[in-house]
């Protein structure tokens, strides 16, 4: 083969290669169809997480929730869900969304300790059906995770103590909520009130600190009142105390509250 032939062949090869890649990437790439949830854009991935959590909150079926999330290659799905729950709260999204995400995060972290998540909710009353129900299929048994809490029993304050921990970055209102057996209950909403403000948080948003744990950063010198949504009564007069470290320096302390459901 002459040198000019070889150059022509190589030149054509390069031109053709460029044209082929341009066509297959730019002009006619593989169709975006038949995809799986793990390829979803971040925004839709979060929607998918949220919908999975809401569905879990409704039916309590953890196996199904896990199936729905199995295509996502997250290293720490519970942490992702917890972060999303906190973002949801910060964005003033409906409380049920944070609650659902927290419940699912907690359930995925420790499936053995989870209480039954299923809730009964009734949206706007339905008018008469405009279409008959589809043919009945054999109902599947509901999810069977034995609830360990006493449904409906209000939480009681069991213990309250001041905490001096110089490792904490800020004075915290630390909350623990447990059922009658002493097992942790995630997804419990706590309301915090102070002069001129109010906020709320949930247990279970920091699974690494316990499914029954939730906290709220206090401002020193401010008096707080805490009330669980399903609690018996508000706890008043909560404030950050003064602590001393080993060198005699003072710092603001935290408050720990333990709530538990009464034994039936």
């Amino acid at each position, binding site marked *: 083969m*002459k040198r000019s032939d070889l150059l*022509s062949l190589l030149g054509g090869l390069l031109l053709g290669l460029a044209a082929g890649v341009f066509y297959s990437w730019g002009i006619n790439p593989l169709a975006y169809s038949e*995809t799986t949830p793990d390829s*979803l854009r971040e925004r839709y991935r979060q929607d998918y997480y949220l919908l999975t959590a809401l569905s879990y909150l409704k039916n309590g079926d953890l196996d199904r929730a896990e199936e729905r999330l199995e295509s996502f290659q997250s290293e720490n799905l519970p942490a992702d869900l917890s972060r999303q729950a906190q973002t949801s709260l910060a964005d003033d999204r409906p409380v049920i969304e944070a609650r659902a995400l927290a419940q699912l995060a907690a359930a995925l972290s420790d499936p053995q300790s989870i209480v039954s998540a299923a809730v009964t909710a009734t949206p706007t009353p339905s008018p008469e*059906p405009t279409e008959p129900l589809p*043919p009945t299929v054999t109902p599947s048994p509901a999810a069977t995770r034995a609830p360990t809490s006493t449904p409906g029993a209000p939480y009681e304050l069991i213990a309250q103590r001041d905490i001096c921990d110089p490792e904490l970055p800020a004075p915290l209102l630390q909350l623990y909520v447990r059922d009658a057996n002493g097992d942790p209950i995630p997804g419990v909403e706590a309301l915090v009130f102070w002069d001129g403000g109010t906020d709320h948080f949930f247990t279970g948003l920091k699974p690494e600190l316990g499914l029954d744990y939730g906290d709220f950063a206090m401002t020193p010198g401010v008096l707080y009142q805490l009330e669980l949504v399903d609690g018996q009564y508000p706890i008043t007069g909560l404030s950050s105390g003064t602590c001393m470290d080993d060198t005699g320096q003072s710092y603001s302390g935290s408050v720990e509250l333990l709530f538990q459901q009464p034994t039936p």
Partner: protein
Amino acid sequence: MSKSRLFLGILIGVAAGLLYGWLLHPVELVDTTPDSLQENYRMDYVLMVADAYSLDGDLQEALVRLAALGPQPPDQIVITAINYGIDHDYNQTDLESLNTLIIQLRSLPDAPEIQGP
């Protein structure tokens, strides 16, 4: 002779480019939208929207979520999911969730048009 070599080179190059672009290193499927999901995931997505609606009762939110599945009317999307659910033995609770949603969608005065992704 050089022209035929050039032509041959182009042909081989195009073939190699297509092989590389479609098979060896195809465009990565990232940043997709729910309308590109496989059918089973799409139908499950509709079911989750129906479950969410049964919790929050927010029909507008349900419409927005369904719009992510494409330009079809939302009630058609739900009907498709109901039929899929019947064919795939969804349990009664799931079918009731979907049915509740379709009833509410059909009670709307005019099906609003919501832009898909």
